[in-house]
């Protein structure tokens, strides 16, 4: 296996110009959709289009031959032409200085013996031309630092630090849809398609060196050479965290994978052991995978497992304590000096232990103060804060009811919303000041996403977890990875 050189990835993720080959006037065709999505999402570089008929698509004049395009102005060709046309297309593009091709065309390795031959020929040709070949049979590539959305599907995520690579294009979309929902953004995303020349580990290897990317997020199904995969991802994880979702973890899933990508069945426990050895963060579900990546991207790594829960209501704390106890995290006993310090801030009915249940004793400044006391304590490694958004939820009911703004409602609504905003900002500020993870969780993140509490968490660039157990799962992944690093002196 040859590792593609870096300039090909630069051409793919930060092209100076893009050619859409096979541009179509029909808004249902890939050749239209790709061009549309590139233009629609504000790609600032030059955009060229080619097709057999000429004419114009979305105001872009279409050349009937690559030869008619200017030299050296496009680095990337986005290929929507039939497989048979592609060898000549790539040769012509190479002459124009194109260094990367994303091939959406089907009819390759997934299409029988003839397709496999065509794919091998395409790989060899790209190699000769010194061109990075992405795909074929892939959905596209996204790169937010370049404002590039070269895809035959919709989602374009907010900018962020997660680098996505997937053997299944639809999982690229799923991950990016979560990015849109949560506001935790993406740096690069690519669907490897048949991964004929450029494989998921190749992209991950690029992400490991990419200053725009803080964490890799991958979906894999078939691993033809497990040993090479292990060596590659281990090299990636030594540099950056990597979250992997694996399809085909069960006998039923393996059967489905065999018909999807022709994957060979492996004992899942072996894959699991490989992940643990390589320091890969393995997630069980797509949601868990995204949230783990989002947490790596937006929270510092914990230096130890000692976790303290700060909650405004007892029941939430109890359930969260259960989740922590079931994980690799520790429900840290509250240090005496910390207890004494909190005693100064709260009436005596507070829980006086971990979880710290404020039990309704808080006043205007208590929550930011307690968060700061807890996170600053040397015997605390991480904090989970529950109860954000309750005040604003009441405020919303008041604001939308018939009594607003009279009866003093306007004032109290403003107060509630200001407070929740403060709490969210305090959680982020305390985390930054202490270098410790501080996670906030409330179902209001999905139930009422415009609630000023969760909204302010989003504005801080962090994830507001939709349930405390999901915050615990994400934090557990961070600690396991941090421990893997510590034990290996990394």
């Amino acid at each position, binding site marked *: 296996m040859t590792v593609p050189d870096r300039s090909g990835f630069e051409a793919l993720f930060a092209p100076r110009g893009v050619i859409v080959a096979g541009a179509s006037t029909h808004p249902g065709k890939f050749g239209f959709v790709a061009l549309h999505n590139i233009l629609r999402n504000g790609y600032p570089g030059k955009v060229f289009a080619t097709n057999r008929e000429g004419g114009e698509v979305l105001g872009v004049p279409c050349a009937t031959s690559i030869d008619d395009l200017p030299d050296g102005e496009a680095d990337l060709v986005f290929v929507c032409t039939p497989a048979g046309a592609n060898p000549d297309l790539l040769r012509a593009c190479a002459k124009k200085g194109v260094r990367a091709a994303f091939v959406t065309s089907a009819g390759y390795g997934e299409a029988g013996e003839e397709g496999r031959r065509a794919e091998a020929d395409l790989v060899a040709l790209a190699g000769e031309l010194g061109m990075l070949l992405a795909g074929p049979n892939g959905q596209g590539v996204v790169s937010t630092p370049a404002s590039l959305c070269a895809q035959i599907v919709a989602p374009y995520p907010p900018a962020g630090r997660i680098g996505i690579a997937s053997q299944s294009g639809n999982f690229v979309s799923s991950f990016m849809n979560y990015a849109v929902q949560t506001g935790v953004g993406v740096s690069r995303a690519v669907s490897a398609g048949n991964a004929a020349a450029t494989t998921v580990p190749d992209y991950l290897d690029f992400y490991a060196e990419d200053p725009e990317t803080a964490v890799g997020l991958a979906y894999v199904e078939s*691993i*033809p*050479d*497990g*040993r090479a995969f*292990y060596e590659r991802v281990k090299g990636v994880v030594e540099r950056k965290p990597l979250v992997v979702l694996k399809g085909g973890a069960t006998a039923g899933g393996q059967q489905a994978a065999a018909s999807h990508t022709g994957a*060979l069945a*492996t*004992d899942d*426990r*072996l894959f*699991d*052991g*490989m992940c*643990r*050895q390589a320091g890969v963060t393995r997630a069980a579900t797509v949601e868990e995978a995204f949230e783990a990546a989002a947490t790596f991207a937006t929270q510092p790594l914990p230096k130890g497992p000692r976790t303290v829960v700060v909650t405004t209501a007892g029941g939430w704390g109890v359930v969260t304590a259960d989740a922590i106890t079931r994980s690799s995290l520790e429900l840290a006993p509250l240090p005496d000096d910390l207890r004494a310090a909190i005693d100064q801030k709260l009436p005596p009915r507070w829980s006086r232990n971990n979880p710290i249940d404020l039990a309704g004793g808080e006043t205007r400044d208590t929550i930011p103060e307690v968060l700061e006391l807890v996170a600053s304590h040397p015997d605390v490694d991480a904090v989970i804060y529950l109860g954000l958004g309750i005040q604003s939820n009441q405020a919303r009911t008041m604001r939308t009811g018939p009594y607003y703004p009279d009866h003093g409602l306007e004032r109290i609504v403003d107060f509630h919303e200001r407070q929740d905003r403060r709490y969210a900002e305090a959680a982020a500020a305390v985390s930054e000041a202490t270098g410790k993870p501080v996670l906030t969780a409330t179902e209001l993140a999905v139930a009422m996403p415009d609630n000023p509490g969760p909204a302010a968490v989003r504005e801080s660039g962090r994830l507001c977890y939709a349930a405390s157990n999901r915050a615990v799962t994400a934090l557990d992944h961070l600690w396991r990875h941090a421990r893997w690093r510590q*034990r*290996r002196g990394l």
Partner: protein
Amino acid sequence: MPTLSEAESKARLAAHGVPVLDERVAGTADEAVGAAHELGFPVVAKLCGDAIAHKTERGLVRLNLGDGEAVRSAATDLLAAARPEDGAVGVLVAPQVRATRELIAGLNLDPQFGLTVMLGIGGVLAEALGDVAFRLVPLTRTDAEEMLDDLATQALLGAFRGEPPVDREAVVDVLLGLAGLAEADPSVRSVDLNPLMIVEGRPVAVDALVEVAP
């Protein structure tokens, strides 16, 4: 795939630090009785040879032999049960050990991942529990320690029914020994330590089978 005899398998593993019992290979029933007296009763007798990979299935293991007569009779039967295709055989005489806890460990050649080390909870419920952990060769001491942490049945590794906790470092040494053998001898294709008994908290390979490339 060719296999090594139990005695040869154990000798190779012991050279890499895998604990085995003090055992003797006897060519005749008389020698077997002599070996049993040296080791002390009760003993186990097994037919041992390079080509014998499935002793239990063929009834070639005799347990709980309490005196010289029992050993003589068992050894005579075992030697008589040898088939021409078994090649050179002997009777392996070993002390009978008792353990409430058993682990399994081994090396396997996976078509995708290459040589892997395995550790699991052994005993009659092993298959039903499926509590095993894998790592790829080569592995570090830290990797091996984490394999033990991966087992779900941690309660079985602590103090248990009056026995001390499992000596985790000693189990780690077994795993590193397996990996060490694989690295030292590229012809090794698989190793099966089943059971790896926990005696007074310490692991000991009571049976071992090494497969080598043809």
